[in-house]
């Protein structure tokens, strides 16, 4: 007997003529000790399916099914009162977002106790005992202590374990895990997946939901690939992953940056034109790289906008001046390029220290950035990678250390050599507003945020947002000219010129990120800092954005500082890689070397933890 048997599940929202189907005909059987995986990008209906299995479809939903047997009982006509004994007792459910799935005002003990009482009816001291037992089963370190802690005091991985423990409270036969590892660091991700593996081995039926085929690959016995609420492909995991029959499955597989340490860095070398199909959620037109204004194919140096042979930036000016200062600057020893080449760095960072209160965030970090190259900055949450990138961007001030632009001291110290240009009147505030950052930071370095939406003025249209940046470069210009340039920039990042009149809110995530990139590049920066630019996007969109970044770098010769927790993405993008842990630089070198022959044990752990497709 299947633990769970589902046929032809259909869920739709809305009423009357406006009905939209979220799920259209999904079905599978789940046996004890087996794992079924639902895989798909956002909007594919996988979470809705999971909720329907517990009778927790939200308001306004219309749910139908050909069969819905839970533990042998037809659950199709269950009322909420009938569903309740199923929830937690027959089916345990772990929600998508581990970080916010525990009541922040209640301790772990209270949450677990509630689950225990609700599913087993236990009361009194037995509840605590049971809770400890559950925590142990979820491999929670120091379970006694955890009971009195609030969720906010736990790391993401520990919260996920607490959630797993609470889902197991009623000894359910089925465990549904919706994106159980998405927000977690790779090493934690690996541990959690191993835990699921153990649970599966004890005979639990596991329904795993993920957008990531690589995550699923480890555990799933059967995979259903969903798209727009329909199953496009299903079958044994090995078949789906090994010989995908459907084009969409192949797209998904291709879109995942194949992490292969042995292959070294940047497997796709500087594509000259857009490649790959652009299916999926972010279906904008291909970027018109060749038709983009002001671009010349050629070597990196030539591709720098307005950068002439003497290295003077005619328009932005400042970087050039700084460069000139460097040329005559006093003997600042330049660290060699990680790959041993002797090219002069665009920016070098030395001995950066930063504390927040008593907590050290960065401890003596030093790096170099080179024109036209990408430095991948990798680290788990709390490693200090965002702080470092914000310091380089000029948003935060380091407590110690220097940032040199072409060797000039850019740390903002008035006493730094050649610092007259770069002090910019900064005072020791951590927040650097406009005038506080040195000029080179204001124009020459641009920043792209993980969540582009929050970086746009909500009142502005896309056109106005871009226009504002452009006016900084070109000053006031006739309306028509400005409009034409906005359109050309939109097209350059693969967007329709007609989007200029829209507000960012109405765009998709991929489109927003393209606008953010366009705005940053419109200022003709020498360095673009990308802080987790694709981690919030679906894999197919992710891939398009990465390709776009490749193209634009090839065109403009801009340097990238690519910050990410995802080694696959970093490998795909980086020439050099720096690994941060607890504010310390653990490994720094050419991508191929770092990935293939990591010198640091921690780097090795990270690499081992990355889920891989078979």
């Amino acid at each position, binding site marked *: 007997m299947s633990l769970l048997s589902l*046929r*032809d599940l*259909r869920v739709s*929202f*809305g*009423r009357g003529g*406006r009905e*939209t189907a979220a799920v259209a*005909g999904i079905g599978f059987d789940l046996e004890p000790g087996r794992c079924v995986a639902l895989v798909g990008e956002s909007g594919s209906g996988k979470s809705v399916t999971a909720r*329907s299995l517990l*009778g927790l*479809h*939200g*308001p*306004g*939903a*219309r*749910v*139908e*099914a*050909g*069969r*819905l047997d839970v533990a042998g009982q037809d*659950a*199709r*006509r*269950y009322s909420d009162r009938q569903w309740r004994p199923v929830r937690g007792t027959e089916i345990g459910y772990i929600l998508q977002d581990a970080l916010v799935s525990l009541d922040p005002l209640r301790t772990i003990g209270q949450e677990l106790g509630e689950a225990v009482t609700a599913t087993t009816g236990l009361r009194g001291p037995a509840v605590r005992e049971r809770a400890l037992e559950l925590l142990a089963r979820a491999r929670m370190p120091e379970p006694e202590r955890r009971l009195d802690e609030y969720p906010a005091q736990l790391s993401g991985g520990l919260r996920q374990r607490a959630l797993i423990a609470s889902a197991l409270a009623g000894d359910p036969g089925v465990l549904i895990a919706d994106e159980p590892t998405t927000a977690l660091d790779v090493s934690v991700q690996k541990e959690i997946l191993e835990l699921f593996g153990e649970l599966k081995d004890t005979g639990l039926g596991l329904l795993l939901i993920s957008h990531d085929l690589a995550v699923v690959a480890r555990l799933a016995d059967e995979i259903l690939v969903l798209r727009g609420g329909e199953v496009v492909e299903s079958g044994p995991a090995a078949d789906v992953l090994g010989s995908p029959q459907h084009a969409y499955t192949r797209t998904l597989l291709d879109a995942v940056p194949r992490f292969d340490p042995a292959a070294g860095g940047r497997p796709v070398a500087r594509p000259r034109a857009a490649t790959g199909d652009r299916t999926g959620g972010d279906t904008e037109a291909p970027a018109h790289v060749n038709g983009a204004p002001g671009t010349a194919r050629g070597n990196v140096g030539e591709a720098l906008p307005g950068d002439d042979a003497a290295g003077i930036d005619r328009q932005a000016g400042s970087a050039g001046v700084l460069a000139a200062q460097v040329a005559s600057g006093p003997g600042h020893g330049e660290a060699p390029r990680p790959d041993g080449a002797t090219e002069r760095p665009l920016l070098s960072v030395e001995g950066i220290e930063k504390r927040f209160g008593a907590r050290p965030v960065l401890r003596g970090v030093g790096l170099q950035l080179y024109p036209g190259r990408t430095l991948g900055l990798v680290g788990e949450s709390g490693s200090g990678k965002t702080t470092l990138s914000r310091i380089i*961007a*000029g*948003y935060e001030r380091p407590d110690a250390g220097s940032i040199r632009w072409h060797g000039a001291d850019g740390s903002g110290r008035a006493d730094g050599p050649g610092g007259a240009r770069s002090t910019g009147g900064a005072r020791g505030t951590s*927040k*650097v*507003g*406009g*005038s506080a*950052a040195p*000029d080179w930071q*204001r*124009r020459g370095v*641009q*920043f792209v*945020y993980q*969540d582009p939406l*929050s*970086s*746009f*003025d*909500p*009142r502005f249209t896309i056109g106005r947002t871009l226009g*504002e*940046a452009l006016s*900084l470069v070109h000053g006031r210009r006739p309306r028509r000219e400005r409009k034409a340039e906005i359109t050309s920039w939109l097209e350059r990042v693969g967007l329709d010129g007609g989007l200029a009149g829209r507000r960012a*809110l109405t765009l998709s995530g991929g489109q927003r990120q393209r606008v953010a990139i366009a*705005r940053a590049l419109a*200022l003709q920066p020498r360095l673009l800092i990308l802080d987790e630019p694709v981690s919030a996007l679906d894999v197919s969109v992710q891939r398009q954005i990465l390709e776009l970044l490749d193209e634009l770098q090839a065109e403009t010769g801009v340097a990238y500082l690519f910050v990410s927790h995802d080694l696959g993405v970093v490998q795909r993008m980086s020439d050099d890689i720096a690994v941060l842990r607890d504010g310390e630089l653990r490994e720094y070198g050419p991508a191929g070397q770092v990935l293939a022959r990591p010198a640091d044990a921690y780097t090795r752990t990270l690499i081992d933890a990355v889920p891989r497709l078979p």
Partner: protein
Amino acid sequence: MSAATTLIGETRGPARRRTGVIGAGAITERIILVACLGLLGLFAVFALWPSLLTWQDPFAADRSLILAPPSLTHPLGTDEIGRDVYTRIVYGTRSTLALGVGAVLISLTLGTVAGLLAGLAPRWVSMIVMRGNDIGAAFPELLLAILIIALFGGGPVNAAIAIGIAGIPYYVRVIRAETLKIRRATFIEAAHGLGLSRTTVLVRHLAPNALRPVVVIATLGLGGATLAGAGLSFLGLGTAPPAPEWGSMLSNARSFLGLGWWAAVFPGLALTLFVASTTIVGRRIQKSLEGRR
């Protein structure tokens, strides 16, 4: 296959969870919103061209028709002086709205300036503004209005000023909170990052965004100020007779409920409809500003 499917459940409710302003579904809500806008439009016409929609004189009294019930010539009856209730409601719109709008404008102007100052100025300036504001906020609003009127006298202008002044602390707090929030917003950092000057960021990005809730609180405040005005009229501190004003019409006619309910009920209805409409519209604006559809 589909023939074999069984409806498991259907939960009534909007597809997108958020219930409407008054908890209705999307379509019902749109109807209500349109109705409210229509009503406010009608009130606007009343206020701007009262003679357009009535043919009588709001001051003309017929002593033979005191508290006459609704009829063809007097669709909503006559009041205790023998004046047409409908016409007085129409003409009363202007003074009613003037009281509300005047009060809101006073709160808005002074509250916005002080709020921006408290949100942007150096810490010590902010401290002074906020401590002063706390003192103002410590008086319950209606009582502060009553106090002001006790000191400086009643009448429509003073009532509007009193309600307006009493409302200032609230505006200061909202604008300041919003300013502080916007100051920390990523897009402000991003604007600095682009290389925009401090002034540009302030004028172009910070201030306009910090002032966004002004539209909402002003709209919502209009209803509150109108109600407060009616309360003052009841306490005999509002409008001067014979000027028609809904609050004082309602208040004057309250003693004649047994003799002519229409003289009180219709102005009361106008008042409630107006306040409810502004509330619904204000909430709608608030939602769209917050980016919800």
